[in-house]
């Protein structure tokens, strides 16, 4: 892990000192345990702050779109499998061009779900989490425990099918195994097996804590709409308050807008301050897209997204 971090620093410093890019977007060590954060290095010295760890849960592709538009020139970005897939998506949707971005490819070893670690220590405060090989050493007041990373990874990382970046300009670390052996279709759309009444109850239970901060949306590289439908006032599509129908509308429609686009990077769930399992909706959508259109988003630059093209054999049983 530290070896890769060192290679990222070296590659970034080289790019910046040669003037090949104006900025390298990577991760730096956070001020709280298990929260490494998006970092923008502009000089070879700043490149020394870059890191690589199991706590890099933000999708950096997010920072290639409007949020930094005009602020930086040519950018290099540290990209593992899911981030590179999001970049592919953004190129396909004409949000960025391939030439604008220089990709420093890194294989993903899977990121840790902070909440799974916290859940092991109810009401306790974790003060430090160290990475020791395949384990985490979790320290707090009056306790220290060793936890294998593989027990506390984010759910989306277990079923990842593309740990290695799909497009790369510079290989920082050699590709590893591309998946963990998890089967996404076995765990996606967990409510399909429930009865309709139970489904609604499960849905309500899932979104009950939502505070509508929109961190899920704002952390998502797909959610680049200038005015999101929830913010529209003319017409106003849904209420702005905490009524459960309005909260539900937000989650249902946001998920739907990601259809055929979501790469299951998990940034939404990692960003949510309330621990809402947003992937319970998006995983259903993507499962349908796989089954109905045989399509997985962000794997290559050539194929056409199914929702933007009409094919005579598109499934249409639902049209009556």
């Amino acid at each position, binding site marked *: 892990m530290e070896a890769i971090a060192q290679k990222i620093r070296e590659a970034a410093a080289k790019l910046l000192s040669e003037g090949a890019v104006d900025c390298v977007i990577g991760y730096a060590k956070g001020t709280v345990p298990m929260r490494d954060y998006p970092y923008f290095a502009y000089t070879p010295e700043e490149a020394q702050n870059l890191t690589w760890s199991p706590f890099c849960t933000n999708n950096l592709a997010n920072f290639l779109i409007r949020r930094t538009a005009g602020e930086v020139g040519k950018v290099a970005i540290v990209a593992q499998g899911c981030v590179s897939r999001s970049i592919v998506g953004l190129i396909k949707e004409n949000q960025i061009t391939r030439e604008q971005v220089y990709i420093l490819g890194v294989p993903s070893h899977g990121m840790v779900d902070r909440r799974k670690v916290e859940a092991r220590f109810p009401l306790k405060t974790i003060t430090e989490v160290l990475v020791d090989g395949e384990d985490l050493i979790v320290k707090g007041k009056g306790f220290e425990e060793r936890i294998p990373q593989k027990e506390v990874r984010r759910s989306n990382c277990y079923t990842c099918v593309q740990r290695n970046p799909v497009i790369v300009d510079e290989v920082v670390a050699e590709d590893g195994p591309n998946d963990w052996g998890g089967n996404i279709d076995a765990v996606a759309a967990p*409510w399909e097996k429930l009865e309709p009444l139970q*489904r*609604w109850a499960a849905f309500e239970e899932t979104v009950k804590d939502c505070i509508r901060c929109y961190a899920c949306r704002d952390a998502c590289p797909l959610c680049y709409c200038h005015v999101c439908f929830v913010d529209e006032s003319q017409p106003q599509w849904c*209420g702005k308050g905490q009524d459960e129908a309005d909260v*539900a509308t937000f989650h249902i429609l946001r998920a739907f807008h990601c259809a055929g686009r979501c790469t299951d990077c998990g940034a939404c769930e990692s960003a949510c301050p309330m621990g809402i399992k947003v992937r319970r909706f998006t995983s259903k959508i993507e499962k*349908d897209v796989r089954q109905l259109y045989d399509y997985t988003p962000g794997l290559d630059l050539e194929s056409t997204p199914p929702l933007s093209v009409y094919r005579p054999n598109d499934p249409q049983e*639902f049209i*009556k």
Partner: protein
Amino acid sequence: MNNLLEYIGIEPGRLHFSWISSAEATKFQDTVIKVTDAVKALGPAQRMVKDIRRVA
């Protein structure tokens, strides 16, 4: 959309899709009648209902 709504527990039958040309007035009329009948048969919606009279 249909699948997603069913997935979260909205009863099937509240969302309908039809393909009607602007020239097919009769088909439009028939479809609207069919859809309204189908939705009426389901009764008032119980889920995703906002009631602003409720005291928060």
